[in-house]
């Protein structure tokens, strides 16, 4: 049973054909990063216009690569939220039209559930499967959530950020220091050159739900550190580099970054990782999880992956391969597979919902 997945909730227009929730026959992602980079972030109008331009060729490419005709499909799955409404609408309208035209069932998928299923899909490929209950940490530019995942894909929200998302903290720190967008990969690449214990940041103490996250205090602490020094020449040098070279290499960044700044970045990242892994481990313990899933764009972070390995947690920790960590449509098709099996289809009244919650 083949599902065509369509994802357009934020940066990427993506389409994918996945067979039986396991075999990725194709996964095409038309990244809009080139468009967004010079704006330092996601711009909604550009986003929806780019989605509109990309959606038809991306779906066609996904079907071609998968050697799949529309009549070979069992369903079309589409991200219904959360995300930017204008962007979501492009994928949603396209998916509904396609279903109407060729008489296929439609399945709406929550974007966050998709991120969790990126891991579920790869575990199926390995033939191992994920042991439940699982604890899922979904961390990206817009989200930082902890979910309990029970068999049958029932979810319970255990914690989420009360202010900035983890990826947003990376982006704001990177912008503050003159690094490009997105901030995560640049900072992650420079961290090995700094001392992660050079700058002392305090971990957030949460009142109420101790499994909630907060990254606003850390962001402010980085700002204070920068304000206390004169980094203007260094920052200007990086902005110039970025103007001359759209995607500088780590070596090029190193040439315009002082050792103290590298120490700051390493210390910042160490703190983010302690926050993420500390709360994920505490949440996993609270539900007696038998596995830990870490997904979303921040799951690409090499420092986070290494720290999770070194933590020697008493249950397996699953990261998706990098291509499935960031936004993609294979995860949407994979998340739709159990819904296809149980006949949980949506009708044409399905709408894009910017604030859709998973649990």
């Amino acid at each position, binding site marked *: 049973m083949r599902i065509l997945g369509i994802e357009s909730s934020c940066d990427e227009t993506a389409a994918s054909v996945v067979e039986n929730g396991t075999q990725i026959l194709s996964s095409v992602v038309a990244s809009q990063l080139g468009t967004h980079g010079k704006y330092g972030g996601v*711009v909604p109008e*550009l986003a929806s216009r780019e989605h509109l331009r990309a959606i038809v060729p991306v779906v066609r490419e996904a079907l071609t690569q998968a050697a799949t005709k529309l009549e070979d499909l069992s369903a079309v799955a589409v991200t219904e939220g959360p995300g930017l409404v204008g962007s979501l609408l492009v994928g949603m309208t396209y998916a509904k039209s396609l279903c109407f035209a060729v008489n296929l069932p439609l399945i709406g998928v929550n974007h966050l559930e998709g991120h969790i299923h990126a891991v579920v899909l790869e575990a199926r490929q390995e033939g191992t499967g994920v042991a439940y209950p699982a604890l899922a940490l979904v961390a990206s530019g817009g989200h930082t959530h902890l979910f309990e995942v029970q068999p049958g894909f029932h979810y319970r929200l255990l914690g*989420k950020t*009360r*202010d900035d998302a983890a990826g947003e903290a990376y982006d704001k720190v990177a912008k503050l220091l003159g690094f490009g967008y997105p901030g995560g990969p640049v900072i992650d690449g420079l961290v090995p050159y700094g001392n992660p214990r050079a700058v002392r940041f305090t971990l957030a103490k949460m009142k109420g739900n101790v499994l909630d996250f907060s990254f606003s205090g850390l962001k402010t602490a980085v700002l204070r550190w920068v304000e206390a020094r004169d980094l203007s020449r260094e920052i200007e040098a990086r902005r110039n580099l970025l103007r001359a070279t759209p995607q500088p290499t780590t070596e090029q960044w190193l040439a315009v970054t002082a050792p103290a700044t590298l120490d700051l970045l390493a210390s910042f990242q160490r703190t983010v990782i302690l926050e993420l892994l500390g709360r994920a481990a505490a949440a996993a313990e609270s539900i007696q999880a038998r596995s830990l899933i870490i997904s979303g764009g921040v799951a690409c972070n090499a420092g986070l992956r290494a720290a999770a390995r070194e933590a020697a947690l008493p249950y397996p920790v699953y990261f998706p391969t990098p291509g499935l960590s960031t936004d993609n449509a294979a995860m949407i098709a994979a998340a739709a597979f159990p819904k296809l099996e149980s006949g949980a289809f949506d009708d044409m009244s399905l709408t894009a919902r910017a604030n859709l919650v998973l649990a």
Partner: protein
Amino acid sequence: MPVFRTASEEETIALGEKLARQLPRRAVVLLIGNLGAGKTTLAKGIVKGLEVAAPEEVSSPTFTLIHEYGQSRRVYHIDFYRLETARELATLGLEELFDREAVFLIEWGERFPEYMPAERLEIRLREVQGDEREIEVTVPAPTRGAELI
């Protein structure tokens, strides 16, 4: 116009609650201040005071641009941090949103003053020291020609 001082996050939230009770049913509030000044924190207080959501539910809209809270009474929590040009702003569809009976809390709202309704509140947040904040509420003088719109 009043200037308030708060000594902690809790006090900033409490001030937001107090300010919320004085807001008309339709209001545009610009939240102005540097990174970490407490814009989202004050928004938490206002949302709490309007009884549309708990403070824990209110997070930064930087990435997602618009958060929406409440049913019968509605709050739009908006963030212009990522927007660079008026052309990008124009496509958020704010004119249509501004027609609704709702409270609009706009972080970094000072970036596009000419696109904001003349009738609005401006709240400036400044860090004094540590967690201490100075919070100034002003009603800007209407700009010339605003009465024609």
